[in-house]
């Protein structure tokens, strides 16, 4: 039997044993979720991000938005009243890494999509106090000035594809997406047409109010405007989601 003294006087052994103990604690909580049926709810509408939304998500992470904003509405009454329907696991199934967060200095953003106009988002990101006087959020004026760099959009999509996000590259993968998401969505998930899809989404919607340019603001606002809008909750009974727990 290992004596206390031999562990306490041997740093290497102490590290290994500590890691084993902590791993057990984590594994027994996490691993069952991988094989319990219904961890991820069976729900229609959730799709991977379009190329422009994906770049917006990258900027969201680059600017550290997750440090103050969560994307996880918990099933409590006060959260339901303020933010809307609680988040489903299915809604972040294509998020790598997920943006659930654990700290709310600002409000939760899981259902911010379509809640405010593009114009509001642009004014607010540029200078939050121009629309919300009591806000403590920093200004992000460079988002309107920086042209969006989308030169590596295909590589970014390929990287996510490796983690299981169904972006398509071959004919078979495309057909599979058509079957799962419908043609119009499947077209946007095609890695080979990523650049033209990104440009057309930015130009058609002109999120930043500068029609002639594609800025980082275009990408970030397109991402914010899709958050929490993919599932049509009116199609389901509330009890349906409870069944998965």
């Amino acid at each position, binding site marked *: 039997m290992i004596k*206390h*003294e031999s562990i306490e006087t041997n740093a290497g052994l102490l590290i290994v044993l500590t890691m084993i103990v902590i791993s057990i604690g984590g594994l027994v909580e996490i691993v*069952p979720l991988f*094989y*319990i*049926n219904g961890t991820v709810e069976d729900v229609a509408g959730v799709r991977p991000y379009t190329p422009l939304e994906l770049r917006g998500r990258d900027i969201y992470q680059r600017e550290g938005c997750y440090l103050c904003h969560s994307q996880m509405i*918990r*099933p*409590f*009454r006060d959260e*339901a*009243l*303020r933010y*809307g329907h*609680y988040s489903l696991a299915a809604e972040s199934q294509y998020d790598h890494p997920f943006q659930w967060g654990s700290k709310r200095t600002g409000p939760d953003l899981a259902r911010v999509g*379509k*809640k*405010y*106009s*593009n*114009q*509001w988002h642009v*004014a*607010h990101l540029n200078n939050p106090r*121009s*629309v*919300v*006087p009591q806000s403590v959020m920093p200004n992000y004026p460079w988002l309107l000035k920086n042209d969006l760099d989308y030169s590596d959009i295909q590589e970014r999509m390929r990287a996510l594809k490796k983690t299981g996000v169904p972006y398509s590259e071959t004919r078979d993968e495309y057909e599979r997406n058509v079957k799962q998401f419908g043609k119009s969505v499947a077209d946007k998930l095609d890695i080979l047409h990523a650049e033209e899809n990104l440009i057309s989404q930015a130009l058609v919607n002109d999120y930043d*109010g500068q029609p002639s340019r594609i800025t980082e603001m275009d990408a970030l606002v397109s991402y914010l405007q899709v958050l929490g809008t993919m599932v049509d909750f*009116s199609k*389901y*009974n*509330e*009890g349906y*989601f*409870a*069944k*998965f*727990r």
Partner: protein
Amino acid sequence: MSDARKTQAAVQTTGHAWDGDIQEFNNPLPNWWLWAFYATVVFAVVYWIFYPAWPVGGGYTTGVMNDITFVDSDGTEKTMHWNTRALLLKDLQESKSATLSHEYLEKVKDADYQTILGDAEMMAFTRSMAVGLFGDNCAACHGAGGTGVIGLFPNLADDDWLWGGTVEDIQTTITNGRYGFMPSFRETFNDKQLDDVAAYVLSLSGQHKADASVARGKAIFQTSTGGCYYCHGHDAKGMKSQGSANLTDQIWTIADVPDADTQEQKLAAVKAVVTHGVQRTMPHWSDRLDKTQIKLLTVYVHELGGGQ
């Protein structure tokens, strides 16, 4: 000193010795600590019995005697094992604050606007419920007091309305949203014409003296040269159907005339709007708020100061 020595001799040491004579006691754990630890173990076992706990195959143990009953969206009563989602549904239906407001919500749901506006008790309820709804959903753009932001979001507390200020109009605006659009005239007019139109627009509210520039601007505004009257009307009082602004009063939502100190700044503010046009979106709320919530907000906005 001698007592301390005696105690030291009575307890075991770990056998370690540092710096010659510094030793470490090997005291047993305090009993209160030990029993608290046993209690947590017992608590865990009890928890496993009554709550969802252990993964088994593709499912998990759901616990016993923990059924939650709630009314599902289709009106049927459902009973299932304890989980936070079912608990939330029950809480939304049966908690004290939910049942307290339920009675009033039912009343408001069935009442027409005239009845609500005339009933002091229903109005008190509406104000207290709607102030929260307004703060969560509307205040980000229109401000906590509904006074808006000039150039971006309309003031809801004055009596000037782009899309109409009756309860029916307000309800339509909240439910379906609005898209406000004025074309840009940068390509249509030259710089001098833009100046003239701006002068005429300011003269409509008595903020510019009648001179040659105003006369030229009027000719552009009131004829198909500019066609401004298509939307703003020959009387320049705006049209509810277009969401076009009344230009004859001194209330401004886009051009920041009130903050302009000099006549040049006033002209520049109006000219900028004519040059660049306006595109504003009010989101629709029918997907996010239910009909009763929209009704509460309609009354609240109507009562902010300027309801018609």
